[in-house]
């Protein structure tokens, strides 16, 4: 065992010396390799963290939301529907929800106006999300004035700013009183944006949804499960898109790496001959090559992953922000909670370390089994 370890260390010695002969080329390879791993790992960590956070946070969203569809579009739903649906087993509460969008030309941002059920607000009072406060430069006690659909300007006194800890879900919210909401948007009394149904037992959700579509055929129920699935799918899709964009780069690298790893120069062939002539076994040569592949790919994996971790969880994924932000003016400032999926990490490890190492070993096989007396000729 001791001899085995000593032998491996000698092989590592030799491999490192041999790699250091072309420091520029090998260092360049390592840098490019690490960069690729860094990109893949960043996307992986980022989407996984976002997905986990969405799943965790949205687990408390309403069980069922009922939308009314008119001519294929989401429309206001009359409060009378609450009676019209009748008693459904398992539903422990139902009420109307009021929310809508407001485009603020001053900063060219879309706000989400909402009537909260957990607090009573005065007519001229508003609670705003942290991103709005940041973008508009307002703080508690300041006034915000918006022009409504009927042409009148309404002023809101900012009575509170939502906690910036929850910015991921509340960045663009403006909470106003029901009365003001209705006058501002011109929504008549008795109409809501949608209805919320509370169901205690998740097993009954499907049944309830079925009954709803039967009793109220012009409505569409949205289950909490669907919300969660939407977000799962989105981040998968997003990750997929980025991976597709990266494919070109990865392929280019694969060609480069394959060529580098598997192309055995005449020089290297001669070296293998020398090593065999002076007493190395074929297996020693292959082990040495294994180390060469392993040293490079393992380094690239570790360096790439570690920088990706720093990038996503300490530098707030700065490189992805523009991609995520897109056209939005309001963007939540949030610090991602690091959720790491062991399986994903293992997959990344496998796909970065394994193919490269194999690519270095395979071509050596043929060269290494040739007779050592070639060096004499």
């Amino acid at each position, binding site marked *: 065992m001791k001899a085995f370890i000593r032998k491996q260390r000698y092989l590592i010695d030799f491999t*490192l010396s041999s790699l250091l002969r072309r420091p520029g080329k090998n260092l360049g390879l390592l840098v490019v390799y690490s960069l690729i791993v860094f990109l893949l790992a960043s996307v992986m960590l980022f989407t996984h963290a976002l997905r986990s956070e969405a799943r965790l*946070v949205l687990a408390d969203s*309403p069980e069922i939301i009922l939308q009314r569809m008119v001519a294929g579009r989401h429309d206001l739903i009359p409060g009378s529907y609450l009676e019209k649906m009748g008693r459904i087993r398992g539903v422990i509460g139902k009420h109307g929800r009021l929310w809508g969008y407001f485009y603020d030309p001053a900063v060219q941002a879309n706000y989400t106006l909402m009537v909260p059920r957990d607090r009573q607000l005065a007519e001229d009072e508003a609670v705003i999300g942290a991103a709005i406060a940041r973008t508009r430069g307002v703080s508690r006690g300041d006034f915000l004035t918006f022009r409504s659909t009927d042409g009148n300007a309404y002023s809101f006194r900012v009575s509170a700013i939502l906690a910036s800890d929850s910015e991921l879900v509340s960045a663009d919210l403006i909470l106003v009183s029901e009365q003001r909401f209705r006058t501002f948007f011109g929504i008549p009394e008795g109409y809501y944006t949608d209805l919320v149904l509370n169901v205690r037992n998740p097993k009954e959700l499907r049944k309830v949804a079925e009954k709803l579509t039967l009793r109220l055929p012009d409505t569409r129920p949205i289950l909490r499960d669907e919300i969660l699935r939407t977000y799962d799918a989105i981040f998968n899709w997003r990750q997929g898109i980025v991976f597709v964009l990266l494919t070109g780069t990865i392929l280019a690298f694969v060609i480069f790496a394959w060529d580098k790893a598997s192309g055995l120069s005449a020089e290297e062939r001669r070296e293998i001959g020398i090593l065999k002539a002076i007493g190395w076994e074929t297996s020693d040569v292959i082990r040495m090559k294994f180390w060469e592949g392993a040293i490079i790919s393992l380094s690239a994996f570790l360096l790439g992953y570690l920088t990706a971790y720093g990038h996503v969880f300490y530098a707030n994924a700065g490189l992805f922000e523009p991609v995520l932000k897109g056209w939005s003016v309001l963007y939540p400032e949030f610090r991602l909670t690091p*959720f790491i999926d062991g399986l994903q990490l293992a997959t990344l490890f496998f796909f970065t370390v394994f193919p490269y190492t194999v690519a270095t070993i395979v071509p050596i096989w043929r060269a290494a089994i040739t007779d050592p007396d070639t060096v004499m000729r």
Partner: protein
Amino acid sequence: MRKSDLFILYLGTLSGLLLLSLVDAGNRSHLATQQLAETRREVRALELTDLSLFTEARYTRHLSQSDRHTPFQDHPLALEHFPSGSLVAPPTLLRSGR
């Protein structure tokens, strides 16, 4: 110092950092539970359904609430909200091929 010693040191340091990153992730997600609980409380209280990541259009702001069967949600000639629009998956129904 031998090259292999340096290498073992280097590999050890990096692996240590990897382990540290896992520990750090565990720690931070533990610390974040309070903050997440706060966010959850807000989601429950305000009956929120979506993340406010893409605020540029209604179908990106409330992904789960938008009627995904309407391809052109704002207007047939509406500008595509890039990149959010292209990063959002088409409805499963369309993707399943039928």
